[in-house]
């Protein structure tokens, strides 16, 4: 078994430290928002996980293109790893969005364009995992997976556009022109710093998790190889 790379151990430690610092900034450095109060603090991690998750889905699509061009199975491992982690990040985003929506818009769930798009994106990539599960031949699984990550990623902006168009033409149930307006606030410099730091933190955490997941994929492959060797 290959030893855990040293830099990965360092990255793990950096992620942990950054996370603690980010948490500290969210609770103690950033000021309490005047209208919404303490619950607004959920916003920093909410935006950070959403951003990084979206980049992860994009990375999966790019790795999909790389796989189709090269037929190198390492890109398939990267693609799958990115999708799995981004799915979890997006799930966190949606949960935090709900926590924020409750006091801000008076409801746990609203068909706000970004929230709705996020949910559809989760469904796209859940379908991706189901597709992979249904295919036995590893090469075909990788090819179909790559195609679907590309389709999925292209559909995201179109979906967002269609849902936003849907909302702007129809007045919302909240009696304001845009549901976002209710949750709007102006950011102070310390708020902005906290947000940027959170995005950075989650990017590092994402990279660390991605690396772990790719290593896991490689090890699983090795186990499979050894098993085949024994079978022969």
């Amino acid at each position, binding site marked *: 078994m290959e030893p855990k790379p040293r830099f990965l151990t360092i990255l793990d430690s950096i992620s942990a430290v950054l996370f603690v610092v980010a948490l500290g900034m969210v609770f103690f450095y950033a000021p309490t928002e005047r209208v919404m109060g303490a619950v607004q603090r959920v916003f920093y991690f909410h935006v950070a996980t959403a951003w990084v998750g979206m980049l992860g889905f994009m990375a999966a699509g790019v790795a999909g293109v790389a796989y189709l061009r090269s037929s190198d199975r390492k890109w398939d491992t990267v693609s799958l790893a990115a999708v799995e982690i981004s799915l979890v990040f997006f799930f966190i985003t949606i949960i935090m969005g709900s926590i924020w929506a409750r006091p801000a818009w008076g409801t746990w769930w609203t068909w706000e364009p970004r929230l709705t798009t996020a949910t559809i994106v989760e469904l796209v990539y859940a379908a991706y995992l189901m597709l992979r599960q249904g295919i036995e031949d590893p090469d075909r699984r990788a090819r179909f997976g790559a195609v679907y990550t590309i389709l999925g990623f292209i*559909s995201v902006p179109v979906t967002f556009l269609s849902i936003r168009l849907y909302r702007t033409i129809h007045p919302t149930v909240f009696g304001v022109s845009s549901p976002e307006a209710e949750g709007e606030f102006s950011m102070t410099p310390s708020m902005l710093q906290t947000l940027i730091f959170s995005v950075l933190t989650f990017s590092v955490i994402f990279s660390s998790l991605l690396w772990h997941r790719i290593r896991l994929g490689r090890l699983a492959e090795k186990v499979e190889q050894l098993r085949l060797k024994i079978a022969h």
Partner: protein
Amino acid sequence: MSQGMRVVAGETRAAQAGAGSFLRALLAVVWKDLAAELRSRELISAMLVFALLVILIFNFALELDPRTRRTVSSGVLWVTFAFAGTLGLNRSMAIEKDRGCLDGLLLAPVDRSAIYFGKAIGNLVFMLMVEAIVLPVYTVLYSVNLFQPGLILVILLGSIGYTAIGTLLASMAVHTRTRDILLPILLFPVAIPVLIASVKASAGFLEAIPLEEIMPWLNLIIAYDVIFIAVAYMVFDFIVEE
């Protein structure tokens, strides 16, 4: 040496014949699907009966009284088309898979995209045929006039996008263990934009909303059609070539 020349000559000839053989193969695939379907009528009749059943269920689920009808008709129609559509897409690819015909198509010296476009056009024709029967039936049952040029344009454009992406995903789903269940799961999340846009544009024409308010939706459908036909054209090779 002589072999190199032979290869080059072969390629040039192939390039010249390219456009002609592309169209010939595409039309052959469409003709084959239509001829088989006209004989068996399995696909159309299944789609049609299913579509009528969906409308029937909506009738009771939504209490389609005259006032609601105006606002929900386009939604009911598109849900019906989408469900009936997946039925047809699944079946049309299963026919290719069952007797190994997909291999037969792939063995032919034709561009793979000719096979894709042939299948997609065949599927589109089936979907339009079902829609052509559902529309008058719905008109009679609920006395909502659906025969408006605008609405028919929306149905045509929306169906093009839906079958373009649907044919691509059906050709993936057919290779999986869970093929019948998987198609809608793969298709619906990706097809949401074209379905939303089609519902809104259809509703716009039914409620006689000014054209400039419908235009964004029509543009969205056209953009979706163009984007996904182009992507399908680019990736179809990777789905069928092992």
